[in-house]
């Protein structure tokens, strides 16, 4: 019971935090932001690992295997594509910053 209450408390605080984090974001960054948060929910891979590590019959193992595969795809693909997206902003930004420093 204590454990559950702690989980609920974390859930509520995290929900407000997520809400507060995204405010006044320029339109330009909506897609990268969505893509990055998409990668972060790939944390579900943690669940996949826990499930697959537990013993079970072949069907359950197969389900866990697919879950880990999906989770890893979500994490790696998500962060990678976000990085590529943001990489396109980088060179011009460096120029801007350099000019500001001059």
């Amino acid at each position, binding site marked *: 019971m204590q454990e559950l209450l702690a989980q609920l408390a974390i*859930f509520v605080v995290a929900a407000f935090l*997520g*809400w507060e984090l995204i405010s006044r974001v320029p339109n330009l960054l909506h897609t990268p932001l969505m893509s990055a*948060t998409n990668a972060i*929910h790939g*944390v579900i891979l943690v669940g996949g690992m826990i499930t*697959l590590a537990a013993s079970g019959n072949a069907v359950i193992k197969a389900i866990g295997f697919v*879950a*880990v595969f999906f989770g890893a795809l979500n994490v790696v693909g*998500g962060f990678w594509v976000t990085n590529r997206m943001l990489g396109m902003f980088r060179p011009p930004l460096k120029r801007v910053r350099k000019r500001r420093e001059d």
Partner: protein
Amino acid sequence: MQVATFLAYLVAAALFIVGIRRLRTPETARSGNTIAAFGMTIALVATLFVIDFKGLLLIGTAAVLGAVVGAISAQRVKMTAMPQMVAAYNGVGGGAAALISLSEFYHMQTSGHENVVAAVTVPLTVLIGSVSFAGSAVAFAKLQEIAFTGSVSFPLQQVVNALLFLVILVLAANSFLDGAILPFLSPVASVVAILVSSLVLGVLLVIPIGGADMPIVISLLNAFTGLAAAASGFVLENYILIIGGTIVGASGTILTRLMSSALGRPLGKIIFAGIAAAGASKEEIEEREVNDASAEEVGEYLADEAEKVVIVPGYGLAVAQAQGAMRDLMETLESQGKEVLFGIHPVAGRMPGHMNVLLTEAGIPYEKLHDLEDINPELDDTDAAIIVGANDVVNPAANDPEQDTPISGMPILEVEKAQRVVFIKRSLSPGFAGVDNPLFYDQDKTMMLFADAKQGLQDVISAIKS
């Protein structure tokens, strides 16, 4: 759970938050993504201690396969196809959450470790995760133009959806009550049935929604997957799943709202009505005269009379892969001492911010790309506004209180304030929202250059040079 793992999870959660914070400004965005990825690595390594390094061979094989597929697809995907790629990654995340909960539920049932929390959260996770999986798959198919393009609807769609949801509720209750409602279905079988019904529901929910609203749908499904991950955290009693999933669920929801308000499309209208039928019916659009200009005329005007040029790119530009030609036009005009700015509407491209990515990829400097709020005042003293492959985002009908159209209330780029307006467009077709643009018929102001975006731009460039 060991103290060390718990602390590692806390560090990972903190890094997720710092990462998202840094993603709010362009200068720090890329490092934000890297920091979040680093947090993920910590969470995954810590999990190895949770599972006591059991089943590493299977886990490793599955993870490496997933990572390789993810890396290759992310590296190879064209930037124009990026929205559907995000949808695909999102969908598999949702699918993973549903499968994990199903498998955990089976473990609990067979080992007799049933608990009330799991009995509630398992059906919930399976429902949200499967809807996200199937919905994302449909979104992918729509954007990739494999299937379900446009808005697919059938009679009584809402009723069917509601009934299906009711079936899922009954199945969940049946699983909770150990098969008391439907004796022929065991709790595990009920959850499997929920999974299947939710997949169908996911498909039915997304097929009526048109392509233009897909970014919002993907963003919403992203929030769903976050919630599914959080719910599976309650099933597994795992803190990082709860924290990471909830942050994404909440931030994804607010991001969805931000997007839909930038697009001027209320969320409820998108989800429950699909795309409203076009405002003006086909018969009402009469044949009217336009100023059908040649590339030479456009080039001549730009070379001789325009000093300040604002270019408005739209989705047609991306379709024609004309970003390079767009950069050439910018360079040609600048070499003649003219000022060139780009006005980027929030919905240009297929997702908010997508057009910026495409143009910077083609080598157009980031500082030339201006948001709606920045570019509208500039248009007052602009000599020529060139609109390439766009219509809805510059359609003054959106601001006309007399007309009730699907784009009414959407903020537009006010190109009508410029001296002359040039449309480079394949035809007079009124564009995605199906609303006719009065600017087309202003023969004194507007030049219509009917061409493919790439060809049209190249012709104009050679006309300017000659």
